[in-house]
């Protein structure tokens, strides 16, 4: 009788096990394919550690004397690009967010159209937007502001549309019953409900935009990236180190600031 007491627990059904095996196989196959076919020059790989060490030695110590005035001015320009871009992006995103929210805009056609705009804005990276706007406005911070703004539309619009859809219909119905006009219903019925998520989204995007605007200069869209690109092209490595430290400091400060403000707001 002891044989019937012996049971072995098997966690997954045969189908599940087959599925897991296939996923593992697929993953391993993808990795092996990628490593075997990627074009990496063996000489570059073998002396990579040496070259990295050489670069770091050249960067050390960072020459902080380079900071003022040129790096400082570029850093301020980056801050302006990020902030203005965020403001413009939010202003452009709000109509699309309203259009994409199914409880506010009742037309399926307009919903889909707005979603399409938001998705395309998000699919194109801010550097690519920067390339496009450099071609449109010419090199300079204007291209940077527009690149940041157009990239932000999709992000802000999507998250705001979701927040709008979660808004409770009660206040809006109450306002409608008093005969309030559409702008008033939005301002006094919907806005107070979505305000917390709005500030959260705006601050979060500003933080991301600050990081991204630091690299826009590499394609000529203004900001600290231009100074960084020049310093690298002239092999001024102590200067490169100073610029990197400045970017790092600003990004970390912005992150702390945003976290503090969000903690107080929410």
């Amino acid at each position, binding site marked *: 009788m002891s044989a019937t007491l012996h049971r072995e627990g098997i966690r997954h059904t045969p189908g599940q096990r087959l599925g897991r095996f296939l996923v593992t196989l697929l993953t391993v196959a993808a990795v092996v394919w990628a490593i075997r076919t990627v074009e990496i020059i063996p000489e570059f790989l073998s002396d990579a550690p040496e070259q990295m060490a050489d*670069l770091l030695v050249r960067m050390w110590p960072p020459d902080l004397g380079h900071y003022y005035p040129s790096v400082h001015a570029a850093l301020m320009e980056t801050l302006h690009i990020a902030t203005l871009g965020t403001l413009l992006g939010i202003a452009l995103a709000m109509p699309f967010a309203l259009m994409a929210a199914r409880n506010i805009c009742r037309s399926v056609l307009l919903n889909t159209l707005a979603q399409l705009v938001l998705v395309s804005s998000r699919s194109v990276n801010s550097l690519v937007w920067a390339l496009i706007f450099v071609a449109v*406005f010419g090199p300079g911070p204007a291209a940077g502001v527009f690149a940041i703004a157009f990239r932000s539309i999709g992000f802000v619009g999507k998250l705001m549309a979701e927040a709008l859809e979660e808004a409770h219909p009660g206040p809006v119905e109450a306002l409608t019953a008093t005969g309030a006009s559409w702008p008033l219903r939005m301002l006094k019925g919907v806005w107070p409900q979505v305000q917390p998520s709005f500030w959260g989204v705006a601050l979060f995007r500003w933080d991301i935009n600050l990081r991204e605007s630091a690299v826009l200069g590499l394609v000529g869209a203004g900001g600290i990236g231009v100074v960084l690109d020049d310093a690298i092209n002239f092999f001024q490595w102590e200067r490169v180190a100073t610029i990197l430290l400045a970017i*790092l400091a600003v990004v970390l400060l912005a992150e702390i600031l945003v976290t503090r403000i969000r903690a107080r707001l929410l």
Partner: protein
Amino acid sequence: MRRAFAPNWPARIGLFVLAAYAVWATSQLGITGERLATGLGEGGRFLARMWPPDFSRWELLLEGLVESMQIAVISTVLGIILSLPLGLMAARNLSPAWLSAPTRGFIAVCRSLHYVIVAILFVKAIGFGALAGVAALTVASLGFVAKLFAEAIEEISMKQVEAVRASGAGPAAVLLYGVLPQVASRFIGFSLYQLDSNLRNSTLVGIVGAGGIGGTLFAAFKRFDYDFVAAILLAIIALIFVAEIVAGRIRAALQ
């Protein structure tokens, strides 16, 4: 008498300050209406030259896309492998402070530097090509996966860890049977997300010479080859779109 909708003065003042800042910053950056107007005209011409997209050099396009995919796969795998020990080292409930604090600092630096900046440094240090892209995206993956992994470990229940420890298990067995089963599913989720994001980013690192379709895109831009630019952009968007759908399917299947 209290008004039904009292004016919110702090908000009004805040809005006014923001508007004033916007005007001041616009003048600081030298953006004028005239320049924007010229830009709009240029924008029209630019769009006209992008149409129709030119897919005649599809071999070049495909080559770039494949290289981007290779960079994404390799850098994700390397990033995940390196994130495992780093995440464990950074978790404050498992590692002593002298180990977790510097590891957390290292992860924060990896995360703060934009991957394109990291890519430039690697291009200068180890030369043009896919290797620099792989290195840069590995650093970016480290910053993201290791941070989230450390946070996941900090949230685990210590009861199971203590139970395994009480049975006399060594540190390796504690990790393997007490810690990892609790975080494995979330770790897979982070990795999948990182693969998706590396795929997006690997289409860009080429702009600074680190391999992939980005190099082709930047070259086409520089040659004012705007119809080819349009084709490349459409291909990148399609690739990202497909990747997003596949990742969504896998995520749904895992749950």
